[in-house]
């Protein structure tokens, strides 16, 4: 789960990480009401769940309150990479002497949380990581001991020459780790962390993601969820026991198991088609799940054909076939459907599908080819 920058800033504040003052506004009127009438330099930032806001024109400087109102008016409602801006953060702009990157991540390789920091902060951090990975300092954190002060100092010492600033930064690393650990975060970034000319160390922009598996014990974090339209679809699918990700193609896929679902998408692409989605219905042959899955697939107007690919393991294919037929009787659609069943009781399953009158095939490859052919009619 993702949260917005302003929400990450609130969490930073709560854990004692210094951030510049700012207010979040949903409308121009709110900017009028909440921004003080002074000559302070401010920055108006779009709050959307996507990177590259600055380049898209979603971040603007304002020298006066009137300018803040004007810039907010330009940014609110703007489309950034397919997302509509519904909120802006109006924050005090700060003078920057130096920018740094700080991040925490769940590291697959060390099987622990890793602290990363770099003196090359700012928007190009991914490029830095790609071109000169040696410029990223990494510190693996023992899950039992947590980030120890000396570790935080060891990293900070490589970024700051002045001992006072170094200690300020080290304290921020430790606080960020506490926040990360206590909220079951899966990514926490301060980018940039800045040194101001008056030698303050401040978090200017923050990004946090959270482990979906741990949301059941993170009610405060869960209450911050503001999902986009596509994400809402994905969440609704999740609540029905389905895993769904919308893509841009025109062949809807329904598969049991995530790996097989990916392999099915690959197969469609390999033979010249474009998958419309990733959809894993999991291990159950419950007809309701199939109905829910079909409804999700068919709600995507791009879908021109549907490919159902089931490998029966513990799940029996004849059960799945009966579920499918029950489901299809409740759905009215003109969209052609190709069914492939294999594994346990596939023969019986295919017989049921054949009786119902759907095209059915025995291999993934044939199913993909057939679905592509039908999608082009």
């Amino acid at each position, binding site marked *: 789960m993702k949260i917005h920058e302003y929400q990450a800033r609130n969490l930073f504040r709560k854990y004692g990480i210094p951030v510049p003052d700012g207010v979040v506004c949903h409308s121009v009127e709110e900017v009028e009401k909440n921004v003080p009438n002074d000559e302070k330099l401010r920055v108006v930032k779009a709050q959307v769940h996507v*990177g590259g806001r600055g380049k898209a024109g979603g971040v603007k400087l304002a020298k006066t309150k009137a300018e803040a109102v004007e810039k907010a008016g330009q940014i609110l409602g703007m489309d950034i990479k397919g997302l509509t801006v519904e909120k802006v953060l109006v924050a005090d702009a700060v003078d920057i002497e130096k920018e740094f990157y700080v*991040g925490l*991540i*769940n*590291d*697959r*390789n060390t*099987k*622990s*949380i*890793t602290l*990363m920091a770099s003196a090359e902060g700012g928007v190009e*951090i*991914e490029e830095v*990581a*790609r071109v000169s*990975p040696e410029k*990223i300092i*990494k510190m693996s954190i*023992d*899950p*039992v001991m947590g980030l120890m002060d000396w570790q935080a100092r060891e990293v900070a010492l490589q970024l700051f020459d002045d001992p006072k600033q170094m200690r300020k930064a080290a304290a921020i690393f430790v606080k960020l780790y506490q926040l990360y*650990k206590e909220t*079951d975060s899966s*990514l926490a*970034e301060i*980018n940039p962390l800045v040194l101001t000319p008056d030698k303050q160390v401040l978090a200017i922009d923050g*990004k946090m*993601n959270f*482990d979906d*598996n*741990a949301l*059941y*014990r993170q009610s405060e974090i869960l209450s911050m969820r503001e999902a986009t339209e596509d994400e809402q679809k994905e969440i609704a699918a999740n609540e029905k026991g389905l895993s769904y990700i919308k*893509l841009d193609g025109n062949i809807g896929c329904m*598969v*049991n*198991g*995530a*790996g*097989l679902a*990916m*392999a099915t*998408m*690959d*197969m*469609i*692409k*390999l033979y010249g088609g474009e998958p419309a989605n*990733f959809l894993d219905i999991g291990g159950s042959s419950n007809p309701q799940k199939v109905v829910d899955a079909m409804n999700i697939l068919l709600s995507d107007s791009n879908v021109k054909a549907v490919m159902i690919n089931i*490998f*029966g*393991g*513990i799940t029996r294919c004849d059960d799945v076939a009966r579920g499918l037929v029950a489901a299809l009787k409740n759905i009215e659609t003109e969209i052609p459907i190709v069914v492939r069943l*294999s*594994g*346990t009781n596939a023969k019986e399953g295919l017989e049921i599908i054949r009786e119902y009158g759907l095209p059915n095939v025995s*291999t*993934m*490859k044939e199913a993909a080819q057939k679905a592509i052919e039908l999608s082009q009619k």
Partner: protein
Amino acid sequence: MSILINKETKVLVQGITGRDGAFHTSKMNDYGTNIVGGISPGKGGSDVGGIPVFDTVQEAVDATGANASVIFVPAPFAGDAILEASYAGVELVVCITEGVPVQDMMRAMPVLKQNGTKLIGANCPGLITPDECLIGILPGKIFKKGNTGLISRSGTLTYEVVNMLTTSGLGQSTCVGIGGDPVAGLYFIDLLEMYENDPETDAVVLIGEIGGDAEEQAAQYIKEKMTKPVVAFIAGQSAPPGKRMGHAGAIISSGSGTAEEKIKAFNEAGVLVAKEPGEIPGLVKEKLGI
């Protein structure tokens, strides 16, 4: 011979009285797995289909001499179940449970290392040495005894591939589903090393997925250490780049994680990579010269 499990393996089921635990216990039992006991705190002294139930893993190990355990307990309690098995001295722990918080897995890792416990999963289908021992939820029917090893991050895709191997006459030594979670127990390299040392394994099939760089590391290992042929398939070749990968994810693996990079790494290590699952048996036969 085989890796990790054989007909001597004595298995406990943690969460044996739950719906999934009870169902799969009977399936494993039918397959011939030597299930010696189950754990369900507060229900010690009862039995499930004749299998004795204990309150704690330690009691069960003391009473039965079990050396493996399979976990079906719900996600919020799975991390603790892994720790309990490890402290009780169980050598191999297989966690089937899906949805375990990442930090719970991380917290268990130093303990597993300290106690010398091998973990498979979480969020995995388990493992099987055909005709000897099945631990987990794999459909036993599709497997056949033989000399091809298999390691996979996936579940049903594994069944798909195993079915193809079996029908084309390639039996399996041991098949291991390592699970799709970002932080998991035994991984490609650990298992490749076991297959390399197993006299019953002639070739290995590796089924990877996009994300992380475990496949690249496996490729490096194969290049340097493996003498046995390896055939690979990577699922997710059509997945859009960047999906679900934040800044830090890209940073930690220095920009890797795509199918292209994994395939390139395998090609450079002399591993044949199948374009689609259907090509796998043919490539294994090509490598083995049969």
